[in-house]
């Protein structure tokens, strides 16, 4: 390890008594607590930190904060690696490992930099223009281009950390912990409001950490510490640092992502706050604006404010000899501070013709050479700045002239004034005005939709920011019902004044030489790219942005948008205010997917519903399947069986002996009231008035547009009480549908609905020996065919447990659906399994249940009732009552829904009994016909039928019921499979329906 050659011997807010070791690109360095990774790299003299996105140009650290476009590093290794992190925001920790991105084989010798040689082939919108011929080549080019372009690498290993979500409500949220934000939080919390103050930096203070101001007669840092301590002592105030308010959503919902520091590693790595704020004060500050001049992206070109922060806050020296290039007074203060820290100021170059006064006024040092009316025409040095060439500005900054003068330097500071951070204000739909004096966009309304205070409102002077913040905090608290809005007195300050830029940001190119003047550093967009887009006809700034990729990097154009707008405005010959801004979108800074997911990962991704018999299924070795949030037993495989073997065995047990399936997932609705039968009559296609107490009936519901919605059985429990079942998938939807009808469409009906899905366990006992099994369960009520006929139900005790037994069948066999209160479900299931063993009873899963229903031609919502099928399409037209209305009946009579030639439900057999039918197949008459080949239908459900010992399918085929016996080809081009099939009626097993009664 080497000493830190660019660390000032004194000053700064770092702890020199402790040393932290870290590595960058495999080399070891040292820094101190209080450093960011960026400041530690600077203190170690590292100037080259990355390669640019498109041209692979060498890049250095440009800024000291969230806006950093260049210094994006791959942090950590292995399962904790994180790409594209901003070195300027990473607190230095002992053992930190970071690596540069987008370079191969190394940062200093990057092969991708050859892209720079072909820059002429990569103009704005190049991916729309070049590499487009031959057409087939694009795939290969695209692969190479995408590999060459790009940032860090996503981790490939599971994330070992966890992330959490926190929901909170506050009266006043203050975003930004600089002077305005601290004053706002202080005023609001003094008034008694619950306040949350959030700041993205390692510590509170904002620009006060970087500028040598005095507040209330003491150094600003001391004022910050005292204010933070006072806030922390107030019970209803929460202070979050290293937390970014990244998005404003509807009704003042604010997304905040907080970096949690926990050396023990037990706390979440990040915490996502979903914060509801009654009122918001935005004190989000401002970002210094770069200047556009040739090769302004070379490592060693830095924002003046950033250099000032590095020397004042971190005692890190970004160079030895600096040229300062500015269009405003602000950079003079930076020059003064750098000189004080021992950096030689070779010259201050000012675009303004007569800035002489600023030199002595701000720097207090007439010896600093100040060159007015000039601009940088060239930067020499590739991997590090070696010097600049200056030329005279002429024609109000339209061109350069005269001889060029060379100045040696290893650091160039640039300053173009300040850009208010209006992101959250704009996300909240606040409108912006162009402020000609400040040359930037500012909030048009400083009170709505959030209160903007300080620099983000265009109030750059420290005294203004403090006064603004106090007033906004007091007003927000008052609006939330706290205090009388009176503003605490603003303390006296001594600070540098506000920086008002001269309106020249994009310097002219030197005559006779092409040079890149970067506007967007992260996406490699130059002023000429923007001008080209305008020449090619793009007028809207939103289109210019997308065509050039201006502002579309991970930094979202924080340093580039204004200069891009200025370049477009110049090319369009319109004022920037008329060009406008692009839309500010969330998130302000990238948010990791881990934080978004929170604890909703793995098994906690979705709620999991299990039936009362779930534990039995698990013990029996069931394979589970998730269906509509339920975990269901799919099949029970025995040793030596394939899955298909198991399904065949289970289905055959039902056909030949008995089977037991868990159907607790069916939707169940208890319907009561004088008008319960009337409601059923209105929602089902068939009639319900004649259904007697003790009987059950099958019904189908339509949607109001006439298509089939759902089916199920409903039983009459009592004069005014019914028990409805729905399909598993539609349980919630049907309840909502019925509640809509009962509460809104027919509020006069006396009917009440109660969801009882989870109150009841349900098991279906099916097969020719089902009655024997039922009898073995010692019912205390008659279960013979006279006592419990088909489509009837009885209540009593089974195996000593309370039960309702409905004689209804989904499998086509004699069957009983047995309902028992959920807590008895497993006991009754266990009893039925044991009672059934002598009768050959097998438990069966959803897969065998599906086989049985396909063999019987029963439709289910989804595959067959797919939202485009009518009752008649499913062969159930006769169910429709002629004597009453129901939901969907009017629409079901529309001409298109009753026209001939509609797709109808039919069965399919593979013509070759040994052949299978491909999944998802389309049905065609002649597979050899060249496309477009008209499709006459499609396969909806298919299975191997162990009863028929061949593959069968249910299909929807045009006029299918008239085509029984016809041959079609089932073709699945994506699988590369086709099979000849024969159309048959949809009921494969027991078409006469004798077995349910037999």
């Amino acid at each position: 390890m080497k000493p830190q050659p660019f660390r000032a011997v004194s000053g700064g807010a770092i702890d020199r008594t402790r040393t932290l070791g870290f590595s960058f690109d495999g080399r070891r360095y040292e820094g101190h607590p209080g450093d960011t990774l960026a400041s530690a790299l600077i203190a170690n003299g590292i100037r080259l930190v990355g390669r640019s996105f498109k041209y692979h140009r060498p890049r250095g650290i440009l800024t000291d904060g969230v806006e950093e476009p260049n210094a994006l590093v791959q942090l950590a290794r292995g399962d904790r690696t994180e790409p594209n992190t901003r070195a300027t925001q990473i607190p230095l920790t002992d053992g930190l490992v970071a690596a540069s991105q987008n370079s191969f084989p190394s940062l200093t010798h990057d092969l991708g930099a050859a892209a720079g040689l072909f820059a002429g082939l990569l103009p704005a919108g190049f991916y729309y223009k070049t590499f487009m011929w031959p057409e087939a080549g694009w795939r290969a080019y695209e692969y190479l281009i995408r590999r060459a372009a790009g940032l860090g690498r996503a981790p490939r290993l599971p994330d070992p950390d966890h992330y959490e979500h926190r929901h909170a409500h506050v009266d006043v949220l203050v975003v930004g912990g600089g002077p305005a934000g601290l004053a706002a939080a202080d005023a609001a919390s003094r008034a008694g409001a619950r306040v949350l103050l959030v700041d993205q930096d390692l510590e509170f203070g904002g620009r006060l950490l970087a500028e040598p101001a005095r507040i209330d007669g003491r150094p600003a840092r001391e004022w910050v510490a005292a204010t933070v301590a006072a806030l922390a002592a107030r019970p209803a105030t929460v202070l979050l640092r290293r937390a970014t308010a990244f998005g404003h959503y509807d009704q003042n919902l604010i997304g905040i992502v907080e970096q949690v520091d926990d050396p023990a590693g037990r706390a979440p790595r990040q915490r996502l706050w979903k914060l509801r704020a009654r009122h918001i004060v935005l004190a989000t500050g401002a970002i210094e604006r770069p200047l556009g001049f040739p090769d302004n992206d070379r490592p060693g070109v830095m924002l003046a404010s950033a250099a000032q922060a590095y020397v004042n806050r971190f005692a890190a020296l970004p160079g030895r000899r600096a040229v300062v290039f500015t269009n405003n007074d602000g950079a003079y203060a930076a020059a003064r501070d750098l000189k004080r820290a021992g950096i030689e100021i070779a010259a201050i170059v000012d675009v303004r013709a007569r800035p002489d006064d600023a030199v002595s006024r701000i720097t207090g040092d007439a010896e600093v050479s100040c060159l007015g009316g000039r601009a940088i025409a060239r930067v020499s040095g590739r991997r590090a700045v070696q010097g600049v060439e200056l030329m005279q500005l002429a024609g109000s900054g339209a061109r350069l002239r005269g001889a060029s003068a060379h100045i040696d330097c290893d650091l160039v500071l640039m300053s173009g004034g300040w850009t208010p951070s209006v992101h959250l204000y704009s996300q909240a739909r606040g409108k912006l005005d162009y402020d000609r004096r400040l040359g930037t966009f500012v909030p048009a309304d400083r009170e709505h939709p959030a209160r903007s205070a300080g620099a983000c409102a265009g109030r750059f002077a420290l005294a203004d920011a403090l006064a603004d913040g106090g007033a906004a905090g007091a007003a927000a608290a008052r609006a939330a019902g706290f205090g009388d809005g009176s503003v605490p007195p603003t303390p006296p300050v001594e600070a540098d004044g506000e920086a008002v830029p001269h309106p020249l940001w994009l310097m002219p190119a030197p005559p006779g030489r092409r040079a890149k003047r970067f506007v967007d550093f992260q996406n490699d967009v130059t002023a000429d790219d923007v001008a080209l887009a305008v020449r090619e006809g793009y007028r809207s700034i939103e289109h210019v942005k997308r065509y050039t990729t201006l502002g579309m990097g991970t930094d979202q154009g924080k340093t580039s948008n204004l200069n891009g707008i200025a370049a477009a405005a110049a090319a369009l010959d319109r004022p920037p205010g008329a060009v406008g801004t692009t839309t500010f979108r969330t998130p302000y800074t990238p948010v990791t997917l881990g934080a978004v997911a929170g604890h909703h990962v793995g098994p906690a991704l979705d709620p999991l519903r299990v039936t009362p018999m779930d534990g039995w299924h698990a013990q029996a070795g069931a394979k589970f399947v998730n269906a509509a949030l339920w975990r269901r037993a799919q099949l029970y495989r025995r040793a030596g069986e394939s899955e298909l073997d198991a399904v065949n065995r289970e289905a055959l047990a039902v056909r030949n002996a008995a089977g037991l399936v868990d159907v607790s997932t069916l939707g169940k609705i208890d319907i009561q009231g004088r008008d319960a039968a009337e409601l059923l009559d209105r929602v089902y296609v068939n009639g319900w008035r004649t259904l007697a107490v003790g009987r059950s009936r099958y019904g189908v519901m339509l949607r109001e547009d006439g298509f089939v919605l759902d089916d199920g059985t409903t039983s009459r429990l009592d004069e005014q009480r019914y028990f409805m079942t729905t399909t598993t998938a539609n349980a919630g939807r049907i309840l909502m549908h019925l509640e809509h009808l009962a509460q809104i469409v027919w509020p006069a009906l006396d009917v009440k609905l109660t969801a009882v899905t989870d109150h009841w366990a349900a098991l279906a006992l099916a097969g020719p020996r089902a009655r024997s099994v039922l009898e073995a369960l010692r019912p205390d009520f008659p279960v013979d065919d006279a006592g419990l006929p088909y489509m009837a139900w009885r209540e009593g005790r089974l195996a000593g447990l309370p039960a309702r037994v409905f004689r209804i069948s989904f499998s086509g066999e004699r069957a009983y659906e047995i309902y028992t209160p959920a807590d008895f479900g497993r006991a009754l299931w266990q009893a039925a399994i044991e009672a059934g063993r002598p009768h050959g009873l097998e438990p069966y899963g959803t897969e065998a249940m599906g086989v049985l229903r396909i063999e019987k031609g029963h439709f289910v919502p989804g595959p067959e009732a797919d939202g485009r099928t009518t009752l008649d399409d499913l062969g159930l037209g006769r169910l429709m009552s002629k004597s009453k209305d129901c939901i969907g009946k009017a629409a079901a009579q529309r001409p298109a829904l009753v026209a001939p030639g509609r797709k109808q439900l039919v069965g399919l057999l593979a013509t070759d009994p040994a052949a299978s039918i491909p999944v998802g197949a389309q049905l065609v008459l002649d597979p050899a016909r060249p496309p477009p080949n008209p499709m006459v239908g499609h396969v909806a459900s298919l299975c191997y039928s162990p009863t028929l010992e061949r593959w069968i399918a249910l299909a929807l085929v045009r006029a299918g019921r008239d085509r029984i016996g016809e041959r079609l080809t089932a073709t699945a081009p994506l699988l590369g499979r086709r099979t000849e099939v024969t159309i048959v009626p949809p009921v494969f097993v027991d078409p006469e329906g004798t077995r349910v009664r037999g």
Partner: protein
Amino acid sequence: MLLISCPWCGAREETEFAYGGDATLKRPDPARADDAQWYGYVYLRANPKGPHDELWYHAAGCRRWLRVTRDTASHAILDTAPVDTSRGKPDSP
């Protein structure tokens, strides 16, 4: 995410609710309605900018349908009221 004040349960997050569309639609009288009326009821929806009366169902709460007046441009919720008050009115939540 919207915060919807259920008149029965209080302010709750949008994720507890299901959207039910235009609250002003009236189901045609099946005895008298013609095709055009059914067409309008089933398919035609206005897409107003500004205040919109719409139905929301408190699916993960009281299962009551609510009439919510929402500004479709700003997403501000201007009013919420029970649709069916035939079985009583909410206490103040």
